[in-house]
């Protein structure tokens, strides 16, 4: 009787320790998840900012200015344009 009781007591102690450690682990992992989710949000924000930057650098007036002034590009004379295909259009 006494041995059974001692055994049960031990079992209870071990189980409760297990509960404590797994709870602790769960919280650790949860915090790591939180950190990663926060990072994901930050990256999303950064993505938005980079997109904004991309479209600011890529505005048509800027492209034209660089093409004309820096790269010395110009539209070819109409006589020099040879049309190769008849494909093309808006809804591609």
């Amino acid at each position: 009787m006494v041995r059974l009781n001692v055994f049960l007591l031990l079992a209870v102690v071990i189980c409760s320790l297990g509960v404590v450690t797994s709870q602790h682990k769960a919280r650790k992992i949860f915090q790591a998840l939180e950190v990663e989710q926060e990072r994901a949000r930050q990256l999303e924000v950064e993505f938005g900012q980079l997109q904004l930057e991309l479209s600011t650098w890529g505005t048509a007036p800027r492209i034209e200015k660089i093409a004309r002034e820096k790269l010395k590009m110009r539209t070819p004379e109409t006589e020099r344009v040879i049309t190769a295909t008849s494909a093309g259009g808006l809804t591609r």
Partner: protein
Amino acid sequence: MMRFKGKVAHKFAESPLLQMRLPLWRSRLMALLILGSFAVLIGRAFYLQTLNNDFLQEKGESRYRRDIEISASRGRIADRHGDVLAISTPMKSIWAIPPATTLTPVQTRQLAALLETDPKQLAHKLDTDKTFVFLRRQIPPPVAEQVAALKLPGIGQDKEYRRFYPTGEMTAHMVGFTGVDDKGLEGVELAFHGQLLGQPGSRSVIKDRRGQIVEDVGSIKPPQDGKEIRLALDSKIQYLAYSHLKQAIAENNAKAGGVVVLDVRTGEIVALANWPTYNPNNREGLSGGQLRNRAVTDTFEPGSTLKPFTIGLALENAKVRSDTVINCAPGRLTIGSATISDAHPHGALTVAEVIQKSSNVGAAKIAAMLPAQKMWQMFDDVGFGQVPRLGFPGEVSGRVRPWKNWRPIEQATMSYGHGISVSLIQLARAYSVFARDGDLMPLSLTRLDSSTPTGAAVFSPKTAREVRSMLEMAVLPGGTAPKAQIPGYRVAGKTGTAHKLEGGRYANKFVSSFVGFAPASDPRLIVAVMIDEPSGGKHYGGDVAAPVFAAVMGNSLRTLGIAPDAPLVVAQSPKTPTPKARL
């Protein structure tokens, strides 16, 4: 007890106390009192555990449980290729609770430097009875972190979003803008506000003493970011329209203007530019005039650009054929007490030449063959007098008076576009009946991916083709708009030069317009140009608006890679000005 044990060794049963005869009521009273105390305790426990449970639970939870709002951002607005036209990015606002804020002069200076304000002004702002003031809104997150690092008492910060418009004034009227509280105020931002708006989510969490989230409790409501709106707008074509319009306004010293570009096949609005415009990123000192999306909200008397509709109706009803000769001499026509005159007198003209030379007398004579009701019906069918229902704020219907009240002179003037008012977008859309085979397309602000809508038929395909070839003649040498020619492409279009109405009289001010489409063999784009009050010496639509049309259309067709449909011989005609080459 032990001490007594040796000396007085009597048993408990022999205790003299027990010998005493105490009255029975004393023990009963004690028992009752103890029972009563227990009853009170049980009652209190019952009250706390059952009756007052909710309140206490709530109090307990408020110590560790927090409801966090998860913010959702407003949807982006992109052009048809996905280039961003409007995007939200998080910023911080710095606020203060003045009674709780006690700053040393050094701290005030530090804070003022970070917020880029004057220290005196800042101190003044904090010196109030108010319990809450915003010190600065929409500052970049890194600066906000520096402010937080100062750890000032009574100073806090909130997350908020700021909207950016990378294309700025170029697309200002189309895209519109939002207010500080993320509410759409103009343009697409207003028209699609419901879809763009995000739904913030929320979650309940348990926080520990250090403010870290320990676990989620209850269900998480995920935030719903606003939907991305894909406009039909093509940034490149929009840029072409905007820059050429701006240039033409400057050259002609004009007051205002607008350009609309439509896709003939789908009815999509590919570009819409207005002048004057504004920078939506910095809206200080904006006046109503700049904000107006003129192409949609302002109507004007279109003038000769309406003649093709009159002629189309006459052809449709077999009143004339394209080679029917109309006598337009001597360039004047008197109806009742009023006289209609041509800018340049013509003799006998065929119906096709009436369009080509833009004869008011010819158009009026053709209109006289048509019943007023039919003319009104046709105007109604092509969308004049009706709100375009794009969802833009301040869309107007224009004015087409009921046919029953038309006097003969009014019907005559309406045939060449006076006594009727339309908006530029209505005019551009109406031309889709000639660019297509007689049907009118519904307009779309957003990109249409799969379904190609069909329009409501107004004219028969035969009539549409006949008018189209007449419109082509107007652009050829001998027509009113040789400057609308585009090397390599066949172009069809019509000029308009209308006197402006001022106080009920026609003033010596003009609205020059040109509406056309190309390539004429298989039209793809409609471009409508309107220049308000050109005062640089020229005022005819063929001189002011047609070159803008040619530049926008020519470059757009090249941008889209649409194959030329004309031999280049036309391009080398000496009259043709080479359109200013742009991207």
